[in-house]
């Protein structure tokens, strides 16, 4: 896109700035729009499973329901409890919302369709999603009310616990892909399974890791059956109990943006991202973004489906699953994956083209015997 603005006669710096700003705005708007639609889908799926109609009044088939709800919360009064810590109380939803949008900067929707194609993309997502817990903790503490506080405690413990196993799962994927770059990970999946299937999930070592990742992403976004942070039977509405109008809506939008992010991460890391399911030329006629959206939507459907069918976990069961099942399992699989890759000579093959290219991405082999000693610049 920078090239397009340069062709309009802008110098490179300005073209880059304008292109990046445009990208940010377009992706934010699209994410917000899909969040609105996805909330509608969520309610429709839930309705269908519960054998009722779901929203069907506003607009054709109730399609405009989310926009009506948005307008409603926009017009409501923002109530700040008198005992609340006002500054933090108001910053908390803003943090949740900003962080939920910021992670989309490194998500590639198609080959090259990404705001920032940085080479630590996956780490960036981990870093940003670990920031997400602050919105919850701050809102819980600043509300100065017991139920939000309990919820904040639960949320922070839950998110930290499941981030650990998510981290190890990501290590397995990175070991296979050999890069932290999101586009690189997707490209590495082309023809991965038997030379035909464009997905990591078909590998016997990565399929269990995908299952762990999928369940952990349910826990990380505090979706049912792990929605203990807003367990309505125990904690009213959890950390957002004291919030109203737009400050509540920001939590709501941020939550769904995070769910969509986790769905797209499932797609990108294990199911081939924008690549068609099979490595057949005919399927490449369909634009990559269609495949990406289809796969992401499939995962969102699974999220709704699970919400409607599975009862809520107890808190000690949640912790047990995270620390006693997922953590040892994913740790074992990191060792198994690296052992498997060493045994099959994956790393030898991966480094050969990089060395042959001798470009700026050459891998430096530093051994104690012959260090690549370069004169220090200082």
């Amino acid at each position: 896109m920078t090239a397009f603005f340069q062709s309009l006669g802008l110098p490179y710096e300005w073209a880059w700035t304008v292109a990046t700003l445009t990208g940010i705005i377009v992706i934010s708007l699209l994410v917000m729009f899909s969040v609105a639609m996805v909330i509608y889908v969520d309610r429709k799926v839930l309705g269908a499973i519960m054998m009722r109609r779901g929203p069907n009044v506003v607009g054709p088939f109730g399609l405009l329901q989310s926009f009506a709800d948005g307008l409603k919360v926009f017009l409501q009064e923002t109530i700040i409890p008198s005992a609340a810590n006002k500054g933090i109380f108001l910053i908390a939803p803003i943090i949740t919302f900003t962080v939920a949008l910021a992670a989309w900067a490194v998500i590639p929707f198609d080959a090259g369709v990404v705001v920032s194609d940085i080479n630590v993309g996956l780490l960036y997502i981990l870093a940003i999603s670990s920031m997400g817990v602050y919105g919850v903790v701050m809102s819980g503490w600043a509300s100065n009310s017991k139920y939000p506080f309990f919820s904040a405690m639960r949320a922070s413990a839950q998110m930290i616990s499941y981030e650990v196993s998510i981290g190890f799962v990501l290590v397995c994927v990175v070991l296979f892909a050999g890069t932290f770059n999101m586009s690189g990970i997707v490209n590495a999946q082309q023809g991965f399974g038997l030379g035909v299937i464009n997905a990591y999930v078909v590998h016997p070592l990565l399929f269990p890791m995908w299952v762990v990742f999928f369940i952990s992403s349910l826990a990380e976004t505090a979706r049912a059956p792990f929605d203990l942070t807003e367990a309505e039977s125990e904690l009213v509405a959890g950390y957002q109990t004291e919030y109203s109008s737009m400050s509540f809506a920001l939590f709501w939008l941020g939550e769904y943006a995070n769910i969509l992010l986790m769905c797209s991460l499932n797609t990108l890391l294990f199911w081939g991202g924008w690549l068609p399911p099979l490595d057949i030329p005919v399927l490449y006629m369909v634009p990559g973004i269609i495949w990406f959206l289809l796969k992401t939507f499939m995962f969102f459907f699974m999220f709704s489906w699970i919400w409607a069918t599975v009862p809520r976990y107890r808190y000690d069961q949640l912790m047990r699953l995270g620390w006693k099942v997922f953590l040892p399992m994913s740790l074992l699989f990191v060792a198994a994956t690296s052992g498997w890759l060493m045994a099959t000579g994956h790393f030898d093959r991966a480094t050969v083209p990089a060395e042959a290219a001798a470009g700026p991405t050459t891998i430096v082999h530093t051994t104690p015997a012959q260090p690549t000693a370069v004169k220090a610049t200082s």
Partner: protein
Amino acid sequence: MIQAIAFYFFAAIVVASAVMVIWSRNPVHSVLWLILAFFNAAGLMVLLGAEFIAMLLVIVYVGAVAVLFLFVVMMLDIDFAAMRAGFSRNAPLGLAIAGILLAELLLAVGAYNAGGLTLGTPDGTAVQAADATNIEALGALLYGRYIVLFEIAGIILLVAMIGAIVLTFQPPKPGARARQDVGKQISRRPEEATVMKSPPVGQGVEL
């Protein structure tokens, strides 16, 4: 130009929020300012081209360490009056620490001006991984050249972790309720857990 603006922006926020960590009365606010300082320090790392370190700083410090800080501080019931009452008692110690820090800073600036210390190979040149991305360069150094140090650091952390578990672990008291056995709980069926009784009217049930 833009680098300079970004540097001064991040640096100013780091310094200001570090001051606010000490300044703010409320310990929760202190931790939140500390998180802002960490976050902007990560921004400075990005400016240096050390994007991997920046991400690790956010993941480890902001994402895990500071959450635990916040967790503990939020649950503490701190008496602010008692905290301020100890000022005159702790002032000499505080002044001593401030003096040491100042001396260290001056020493560091002096050493920096005298020319950097050369570490690394015996001939006095630092090992520098050329033309590799952050992760590759760090990985090549950590898992190649400094593998022994890296493993030792790992073992020290493991020992610390086991130590913490040993210190806090309390074996169940004799006579305490037995540990939860999830398998046993799940495999329990209604006929083992319930008894059907049909007592005569007015007599009740003996359990």
